[in-house]
């Protein structure tokens, strides 16, 4: 039955597409998404264990293979051979579906990432409309609406998480999933709002277009509003992929393991894979949106050479993919670093942080991004030499000043608000709070 279905799909694909895209699709699907990315993710797990060990003055896995390199494989084999357990009253189908949904969500977001520069072709400029050489991007699909696509597929993850908690018939799992769905829905908003300046500046929703624009005008993280957007995007990404300090859904000490409490064997392995794969995907997205993809810092190096010979293109793509993976690696290290440093946040503060600090900051940042657009980007749209030195620095100074003001203002307001709510809580309960207020703890650094 399955084979028939596959053959129908294959016939359809063969009928729909030329032979070469078909081969490319096959390669992406079976070499990339079914082979390389899970392997990469397994080694991200190994890397996390090694790095976390170093942060705690330990060695980390070193028993299986040299440097413990086969540890992930051993864990995988262990997970595969464990007993697959489903609770008696669980909703079997949904219980089986939930981890798959999460994995699908993580994998789908990798489909539009331009890992390399691809080749160069003549396309219409989204801002000015004139034809100019544009990067095609080395990605599985180049969607014209890539950014909303990313947001859409990442929102499927919260559905999978919710179903995992619900179908387990366990109150801890349900609590964990309810919490985490609220968390993911809340942090999706600053995450989306942080990408809006990027879309505004590049005038396109396609990730390849954004990459192309950054290669031309410089990385977005190097501008003050872009840096602020980068920071907000990273913080909300931590919450989106449930990493420390926002790992409330799987809080071991409070909820045992949260939403995947009742999962064992490879189904738990799928959750594990999905978590790390979504972390990888988020780092890829961040690199593409803010760090200029595979561009080498301060150089327009491979771009002018592209579009000639296939061999040269392949070689240059290899270089850009290497640079891209280096940047992604640094971001992943950032994830490990934060996890090794910060303790878990409390639920109410987590929500207050998103709604009262990040979202207002995002909105103000959007205004400042518009100022940057007006000063630096719009006046030189279509001119090949880009903004002048003085113009760039005027824009930098103005927006940097505004950013600093916005940051301190937002944090100050946030503090005022939390103190105010603490006061009202004290007066309403009429007694001293049992939990010591965070402001009254003497901080020593």
């Amino acid at each position, binding site marked *: 039955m399955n084979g028939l279905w596959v053959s129908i799909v294959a016939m359809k694909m063969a009928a729909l597409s030329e032979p070469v895209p078909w081969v490319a699709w096959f390669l992406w699907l079976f070499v990339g998404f079914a082979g390389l990315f899970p392997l990469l993710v397994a080694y991200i797990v190994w890397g996390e264990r090694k790095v976390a060990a170093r942060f705690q003055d330990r060695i980390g896995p070193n028993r299986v293979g040299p440097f413990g390199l086969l540890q992930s494989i051993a864990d995988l084999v262990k997970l595969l051979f464990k007993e697959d357990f489903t609770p008696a009253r669980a909703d079997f189908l949904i219980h089986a579906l939930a981890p798959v949904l999460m994995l699908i969500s993580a994998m789908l977001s990798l489909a539009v990432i331009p890992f390399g520069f691809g080749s160069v072709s003549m396309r219409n400029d989204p801002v000015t409309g004139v034809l100019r050489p544009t990067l095609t991007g080395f990605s599985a699909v180049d969607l014209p609406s890539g950014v909303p696509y990313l947001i*859409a597929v990442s929102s499927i993850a919260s559905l999978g998480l919710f179903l995992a908690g619900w179908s387990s018939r366990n109150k801890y799992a349900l609590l964990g999933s309810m919490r985490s769905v609220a968390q993911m829905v809340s942090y999706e908003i600053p995450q989306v709002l942080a990408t809006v300046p990027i879309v505004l500046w590049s005038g396109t929703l396609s990730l390849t277009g954004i990459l192309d624009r950054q290669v031309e005008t410089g990385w977005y993280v190097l501008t003050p509003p872009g840096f602020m957007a980068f920071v907000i995007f990273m913080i909300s990404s931590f919450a989106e992929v449930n990493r420390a300090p926002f790992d409330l859904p799987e809080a071991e000490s409070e909820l045992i393991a949260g939403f995947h409490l009742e999962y064992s064997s490879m189904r738990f392995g799928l959750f594990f894979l999905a978590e790390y794969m979504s972390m990888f995907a988020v780092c890829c997205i961040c690199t593409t949106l803010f760090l200029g993809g595979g561009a080498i810092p301060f150089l327009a190096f491979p771009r002018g050479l592209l579009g000639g010979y296939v061999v040269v293109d392949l070689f240059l793509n290899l270089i850009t993919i290497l640079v891209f993976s280096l940047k992604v690696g640094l971001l992943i290290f950032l994830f490990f670093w934060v996890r090794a440093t910060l303790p878990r946040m409390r639920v109410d503060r987590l929500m207050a942080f998103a709604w009262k600090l990040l979202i207002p900051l995002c909105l103000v940042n959007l205004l400042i991004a518009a100022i940057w657009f007006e000063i630096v980007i719009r006046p030189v749209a279509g001119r090949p030499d880009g903004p002048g030195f003085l113009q760039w620095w005027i824009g930098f100074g103005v927006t940097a000043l505004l950013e600093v003001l916005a940051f301190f203002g937002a944090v100050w307001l946030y503090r005022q608000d939390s103190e105010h709510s603490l006061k009202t809580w004290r007066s*309403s309960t009429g007694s001293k709070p049992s939990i010591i207020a965070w402001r009254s703890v003497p901080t020593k650094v």
Partner: protein
Amino acid sequence: MLLLMLVSAGMLVAGLWEILIFREFGPMRGVFVQIAGAAVLCAVGTVLARNLIHSALYLVAFFFLVACLFIMLEAEFLAVMQVLVFIGAVAILLMFGIMLTQDVQGDQVEAHSVLRRLPAAIVAIGLFVMLAVAVQQRPDFSKARTERAAPSVAARERVLNQMPQELGLDLMQRWCLPFELVGLLLTASLVGAVALAQPVGSLSAGSDGTPSPGSLTETPEHLSREVAGGTHSSSRPDLVSP
């Protein structure tokens, strides 16, 4: 479970049907039949599933299949928006609603009665027959676009290639008033939802927890007592720490 098996069986039959009968029409009709058949089955599942969470899951599948149909209609941006809004927000909101109004696991089932269904089925089938007849009355509807030699409008080709940009410009120029009105509607619904979902009495009442007369969420007299006791957390003595 039964419906899911039905869905997959239907898709399989549709695929075979496509291979046997619709080869000469080109592949897209077969794809359409499969997607649309699955969508209709999911819609039926939404309406008939007795467990509300299952119902919501069928609805999610239906939303996804409608997004697929949008892609077939070359409105990729709208398909993405469909997934984003309906699966990412509406479905989650519905799940939360189910969790908050059912028992904690949300799997109470409701009983169906034939008395209730029969008239509804008659009305529904009647309406469907009416609509189908009306659709089939127009012979030009049944021809494929390629057969009708529709005029290729350059503007439309452009919007298909750059839909997000064109849509944004259009919303800001030609459709500015509806756009602003929708913004107003969303703001109003945000405020309204917050106001409605507040615990009873916390908006207009003082610290004593009694709702003032004429407040937004005034309750019938015989019910307000038990409601105020259960939901107004700051008035509960057991939450105050020693």
